[in-house]
């Protein structure tokens, strides 16, 4: 028996091959529907507990101190079907030395897998249950700790301890600006330990810091219901907002990270791992969708050319020497002037050439902005064969580079390659070059499947690179070191009794206060929502104006490095707006003044914005002065003149006088003659 794997395939099998590549922002919901875009999120949120999940080290301390280093390797273990997981095998092929940096204050012998786990942190479990409750999940009655295997070294045990808290829920997903108003289905929430922070990954050595390791996280998994890159971003924000509503999660850099699963019609799920900021999600997922579409186009082209996949003996663990598609090329390149290859030969490294039957021209097919299909090969080689000194690979689609035509011809003829074939030349230390040759053949055979299952690393420019094969479902084993934990009804009752206000309830409250749904959603998700609540505007007009003012002005001041204001100095402004002693138009200016002059009292600051008894005389005086200046401007149209005049007068009267009154007065003084 193996657990039925969750379907990785996009439900639509007909790729939209004719759909042109477009930039983010150029596509409508219908366009994304046409290419079959589907996204899902796995959001990892650190919990704000005192200690780590399975040991009593402090959680949430970030350090740079190093007291000692430990070196380990990860061996793949056999799955229950007696096979090595593709992911596991790949990691082992890389033969990485994994180095852990230890700091006495943040790590004990548990994290480095020299002591069995201590009892699970109940504070974390209860926060996790509360989060599960907020997502409307069916909660477990007994928590079983499992081991989820990770062989990349990010966890010294080689597995992450994780337990399922709840399943199958949904939350209201309302984003008027994107036309979204439907439930967001949540598949599950689990509680798990955080992994190490990667410090460097050079060649055969990867180094991790262990301070973060073991920090309690919840992982929230949505169903793949997100239909555009912007929906992915909105869902990420909503999920984070729900978790934050508990007030018991960590905030700030690295405290919440999401993995995004993307597929398009005809492809399968690809995971983009560890995206730290929601604002990066749209571009990343858009580019990934088109990468997949381009891989499907390449598959189609191979089919059209009638090319069969290269035969790979015996799964993934074969030796290239048994393949007629690979030769040792050093002999043909003795006179090579291309420095990287020449140097490699001088260092007595190995140069191999690989023939990809029928691939001519495909390696230069664009897959991501500024990136061609050849990158899919070089990324594999970089990660799996640990070749890091670029360049380590050239290919025949770029003929005027690297080798001269004679050398290309020699290699082609040695490989018995014709014009329809592509040739990749790769070099490095002998065993790494061997691995590289094998991986190139494997990647080429995967091109015939279209989109291989991968976990990809997102880059800042929105593109992504190969990180590892997507692990199969067979990597989850019970943790025999930890007894099952009954989840008592009493805990749930306690959680129920102190549930925080949920985002959608808050939004509804804002709507009742007078905001539109769009404004309510935006306010609810903002950092100043609490400030708004503390100011508790009493009528609809003030509420709406205040929400608008906060949205416009708070980000401006925070960009200038000013501290976010507390409610105290601003309350008098809100009360003044309510009793109309300050006019609504003055809200922003008054707010600015309060924030800019924390040293002054609110009364003092607000004085200059108050409506005064002499305001009518003031209007009269200013309008008169403008009418005087306007005499030189009689050649202008009425509209232009009016706009100019309002611009002259209003800044002096903002918040003090009703703009309608000013306008009427100006019309009278400017155009009185005309009317007469």
């Amino acid at each position, binding site marked *: 028996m193996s657990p039925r794997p969750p379907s990785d395939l996009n439900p639509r099998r007909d790729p939209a091959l004719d759909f042109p590549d477009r930039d983010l922002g150029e596509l409508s919901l219908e366009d994304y529907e046409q290419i079959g875009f589907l996204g899902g999120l796995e959001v990892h949120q650190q919990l704000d507990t005192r200690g780590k999940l399975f040991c009593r080290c402090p959680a949430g301390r970030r350090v740079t101190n190093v007291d000692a280093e430990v070196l380990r390797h990860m061996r793949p273990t056999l799955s229950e079907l007696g096979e090595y997981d593709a992911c596991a095998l790949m990691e082992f092929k890389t033969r990485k030395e994994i180095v852990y940096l230890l700091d006495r204050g943040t790590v004990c012998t548990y994290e480095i897998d020299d002591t069995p786990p201590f009892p699970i942190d109940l504070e974390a479990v209860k926060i996790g249950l509360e989060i599960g409750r907020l997502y409307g999940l069916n909660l477990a*009655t*007994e928590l*079983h700790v499992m081991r989820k295997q990770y062989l990349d070294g990010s966890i010294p045990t080689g597995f992450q301890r994780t337990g399922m808290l709840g399943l199958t829920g949904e939350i209201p997903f309302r984003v008027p600006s994107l036309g979204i108003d439907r439930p967001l289905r949540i598949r599950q929430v689990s509680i798990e330990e955080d992994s190490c922070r990667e410090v460097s990954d050079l060649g055969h050595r990867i180094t991790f810091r262990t301070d973060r390791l073991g920090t309690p996280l919840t992982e929230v998994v949505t169903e793949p219901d997100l239909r555009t890159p912007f929906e992915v971003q909105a869902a990420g924000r909503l999920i984070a907002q729900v978790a934050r509503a508990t007030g018991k999660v960590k905030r700030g850099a690295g405290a919440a990270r999401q993995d995004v699963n993307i597929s398009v019609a005809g492809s399968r799920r690809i995971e983009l791992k560890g995206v730290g900021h929601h604002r990066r999600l749209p571009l990343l997922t858009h580019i990934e969708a088109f990468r997949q579409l381009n891989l499907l186009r390449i598959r189609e082209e191979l089919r059209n050319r009638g090319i069969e996949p290269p035969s790979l003996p015996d799964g993934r663990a074969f030796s290239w020497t048994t393949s007629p598609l690979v030769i040792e090329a050093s002999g043909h390149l003795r006179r090579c002037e291309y420095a990287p290859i020449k140097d490699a030969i001088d260092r007595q490294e190995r140069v191999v050439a690989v023939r990809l039957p029928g691939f001519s021209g495909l390696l230069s097919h664009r897959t991501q902005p500024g990136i061609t299909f050849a990158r899919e090969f070089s990324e594999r080689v970089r990660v799996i064969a640990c070749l890091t000194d670029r360049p380590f690979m050239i290919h025949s689609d770029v003929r005027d580079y690297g080798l001269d035509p004679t050398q290309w011809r020699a290699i082609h003829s040695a490989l018995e390659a014709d014009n329809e074939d592509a040739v990749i030349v790769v070099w490095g230390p002998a065993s790494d070059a061997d691995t590289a040759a094998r991986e190139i053949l494997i990647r080429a055979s995967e091109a015939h499947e279209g989109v291989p299952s991968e976990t990809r690393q997102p880059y800042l420019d929105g593109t992504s690179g190969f990180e590892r094969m997507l692990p199969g479902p067979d990597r989850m084993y019970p943790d025999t070191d930890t007894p099952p934990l009954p989840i008592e009804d009493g805990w749930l009752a306690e959680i129920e009794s102190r549930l925080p206000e949920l985002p959608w309830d808050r939004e509804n409250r804002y709507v009742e206060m007078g905001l539109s749904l769009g404004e309510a959603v935006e306010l609810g998700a903002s950092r100043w929502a609490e400030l708004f609540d503390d100011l508790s505007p009493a009528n609809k007009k003030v509420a709406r104006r205040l929400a608008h003012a906060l949205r416009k002005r708070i980000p401006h001041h925070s960009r200038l490095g000013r501290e976010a204001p507390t409610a105290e100095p601003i309350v008098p402004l809100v009360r003044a707006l309510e009793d109309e002693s300050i006019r609504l138009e003055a809200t922003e200016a008054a707010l600015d003044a309060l924030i800019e002059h924390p040293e002054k009292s609110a009364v003092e600051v607000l004085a200059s914005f108050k409506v005064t008894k002499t305001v009518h005389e003031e209007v009269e005086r200013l309008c008169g002065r403008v009418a005087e200046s306007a005499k030189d401007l009689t050649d202008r149209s009425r509209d232009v003149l009016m706009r100019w005049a309002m611009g002259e007068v209003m800044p002096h009267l903002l918040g003090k006088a009703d703009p309608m009154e000013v306008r009427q007065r100006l019309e009278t003084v400017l155009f009185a003659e005309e009317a007469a």
Partner: protein
Amino acid sequence: MSKDLYKGYRDPCLSLLKRHDVTVWCELEAQTSRGEFHGLLLPRSETADPYHLVLKLDSGYNIGIRHDTVQNLKKVGYREANYKIPEQEFPRDPEKPTVRLFGTGGTIASRLDYRTGAVIPAFSPGELYGSVPELADICNLDTEKLFGVFSENMGPEQYLILAERIGEAIREGYDGIMIGHGTDTMHHTSAVLSFMIQNTPVPIVMVGSQRSSDRPSSDAAQNLINAAHAASHGPIAEVVVCMFGPTSDRYNLLHRGTRVRKMHSSYRSTFRTLGDIPLATIEDGFVNPIREDFAPRRSDRDVLVQAAFEEKVTIVYYYPGMQPDVIDALAEKGYKGIVIAGTGLGHVNRKIYPALERANAAGVQVYMTLQTMWGFVQMYVYETGREILELGVVPLANMIPDVAYVKLGWALGVHPDDPEAVRRLMSTPIAGDMTDREPHDGYLVLQGGVPESAKFFTNVWK
């Protein structure tokens, strides 16, 4: 048969399952007061409480459902697990040395049944080759599973069988012997084999693991690989323990069987040589001796096996306030030998002197070792020591208490009717169990936190 259908479930879950006509390995839809769950019903661990059903979800997670939340269980399928370790034939190469690997049990010889969490034995050559294929590059391997017991259940009965079978294997011409063993009492077995099997011409290498081989970070593979190097072509023909040097995956140490002890409950680098230095390091396939006074490998087969053990032997770990009746009770119960782990240089309180005297008169042999683990018994320094000697207590130099215990059991087994011969054997070093001298680095317990240790650890793999 009905037991298997409901494996591990007791009431109230058992009757719940029967009422809904479902058994383990049924795929279920469970309606509960906490919502609906779908999964495969797994067996329940016998040591877990009787109130929960365990479902394996499609995601691979297990989840527990309390019996009284269940409203309905509906069977929607059946998928029985049939767990078997994959086997691959272990290749043979006539050019390579051939090693006999005896299995006794323990972590190194077991794997996890991934669905139930139960530990199942895995020890055939095919299974080993399946998980550590590198072994085939080192030697040919014949394995024999003698027992399937955890470390704590190894005892005199197993010692005798193991010693005899090793003797036979040596005489059959094997180039080396490996013994897979649980780590908790590995040093007891290594000591007793050091006495029972003397003058071995080939290495006898004990190996275990602190992390089971189903874990990616397991130490099992490195330990097995290095033990295979030591056994197949290593130069040291003694009973040795082959385990991690540092906790990092760097090298193994070969410890002499009578000087080694497990010193940490869970660290990988738990085995240490006490009062001396280890015999060798093993790294990248090379056995590098770090001392010269080891017994070298020979081509003859002149091994001496003396498999005997008297079970009525015990260790008494002395503590302040010990009452004399502890000793009296042992003598009355027919114990033939007592090893005392005394304080300091080898002391016990005056209150138990009369009991020691009575034991001596009754023919119970009493020996003195140290609970300090390091250092020599020296009973002449203080008057107490001299008084205790007069009571017939025999000092055992720097013999580790656990080693003294198995040596006394062995000596009394070999010479059941000759107390003098036993005393002679006990007082004579046979396999490095007592040494003439302790080198300056024979005691090395680094103090963490002090500047010199901190500096040291910036330069080495911990």
